């Protein structure tokens, strides 16, 4: 892997007051990777996505988008960079007062000067890609969780992003819809040639999607490898997380934290 990484985190530390959420996290994401970041709830997975988006600034360390240091960018350049990233939030984060069409048109209307016809064609194309044609005039509140998630993916695709960030894409969805969303993520990233970072703690989804996996535990990346290496990992923490055993170092550490 001698090519330049699309995203690179270098010894990133993030502290809120005295608590270190991330404590020296380093990893790289290369073009066309589908990196799944694993970790327990509250381990800093979504925070990592916020750091990549420049919404949070690290306490120390550096985050690069190709050669650009994200935390040093001026607001206008940061916004330009964000427009090249598509984000799908855990609870979809569609603008509730806008219809599906308005939600999808929003980034294009605000950031590019494209004719109405072109915007409408892009909306149609992306809704078709996620299997949601015909829902243009619906409000987000009229849609189910899975539908909202698909619309959110379509919105993320509107700017033809170089990189897609998914925050818990299967959270709150039934297993069938969850698999459909996973397939959608794989197909879309392959069709568009995009790179994706997926944050999840659901192992079935993770193994379906990933071309690479990284596990975040107590603020550090404890393993960064191919999915097959995760299945037979020798690290007891990774092994317990992958198998979902109730006994092991993760539960011991939770019990110790509780008793102290």
């Amino acid at each position, binding site marked *: 892997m001698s090519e330049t990484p699309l995203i690179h985190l270098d010894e990133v530390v993030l502290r809120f007051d005295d608590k270190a959420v991330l404590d020296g996290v380093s990893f790289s994401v290369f073009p066309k990777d589908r990196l799944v970041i694993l970790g327990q709830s509250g381990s800093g997975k979504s925070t990592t996505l916020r750091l990549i*988006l420049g*919404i949070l600034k690290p306490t120390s360390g550096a985050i690069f988008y190709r050669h650009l240091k994200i935390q040093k960018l001026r*607001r206008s350049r*940061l*916004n330009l*960079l964000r427009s090249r990233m598509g984000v799908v939030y855990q*609870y979809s*984060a*569609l603008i509730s007062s806008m219809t599906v069409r308005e939600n999808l048109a929003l980034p294009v209307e*605000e950031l590019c000067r494209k004719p109405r016809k072109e915007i409408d064609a892009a909306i149609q194309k992306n809704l078709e890609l996620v299997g949601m044609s015909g829902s243009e005039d619906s409000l987000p509140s009229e849609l189910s969780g899975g539908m909202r998630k698909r619309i959110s993916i379509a919105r993320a695709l509107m700017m033809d992003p170089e990189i897609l960030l998914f925050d818990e894409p299967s959270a709150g969805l039934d297993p069938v819809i969850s698999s459909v969303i996973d397939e959608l993520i794989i197909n879309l990233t392959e069709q568009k040639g995009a790179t994706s970072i997926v944050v999840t703690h659901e192992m079935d989804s993770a193994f379906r999607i990933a071309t690479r996996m990284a596990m975040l535990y107590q603020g550090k990346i404890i393993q960064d490898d191919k999915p097959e290496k995760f299945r037979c990992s020798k690290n007891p923490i990774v092994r317990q997380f992958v198998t979902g055993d109730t006994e092991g170092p993760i539960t011991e550490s939770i019990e110790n934290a509780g008793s102290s």
Partner: protein
Amino acid sequence: MALLTGYQLQKFGTERLVPTLIAISFTRELGALLTGIVLAARIGAAYTAELGTMQVSEEVEAIESMGIGPLRFLVAPRLVAIALSMPCLSVVSCVAALIGSSLISWSALNIAPAAYFDTVMTSLITSDIVIGLFKALFFGLLIGLIACFQGLSVTGGAEGVGKATTDSVVIAITNVIGFDTFFNIMVTKITR
């Protein structure tokens, strides 16, 4: 106000001053102040609740992550809207106050509407109207800024939205009254 002051002035035979009193106090002072209080409670609360809900449901962050500035997209249009509507609504409140008090003056103080409006027209001066409109514009901006700031600072879900909305109304009304007093002192000192 017309009734209350009218009865007091009647004791001294000076109830004819009521139209002047109403005209000056509403154009310079009460029109903007009362409209400000109503708008802080109605529009300010609506802004805070809407932006607060957007904040807790990650909609604001989603807008930011698209590369759209939330200040430009969410705050600026609301500020322009409230700043422009405040002077217009202040004018409506002044006109309504003048019509209402003319009816009260007619029925309770025996001042004919024609005489009432004649006195109003001679008492009104341009500087009072301009000061009133300027204050309304300023109060609009103030209410909008406070409401948007409170909305975008919400944390902690539905409870946070409720608390921010209450805070927004209380802070906005207090500020409107405070700045109104400050304006009055300044204007009085300058025009004296």
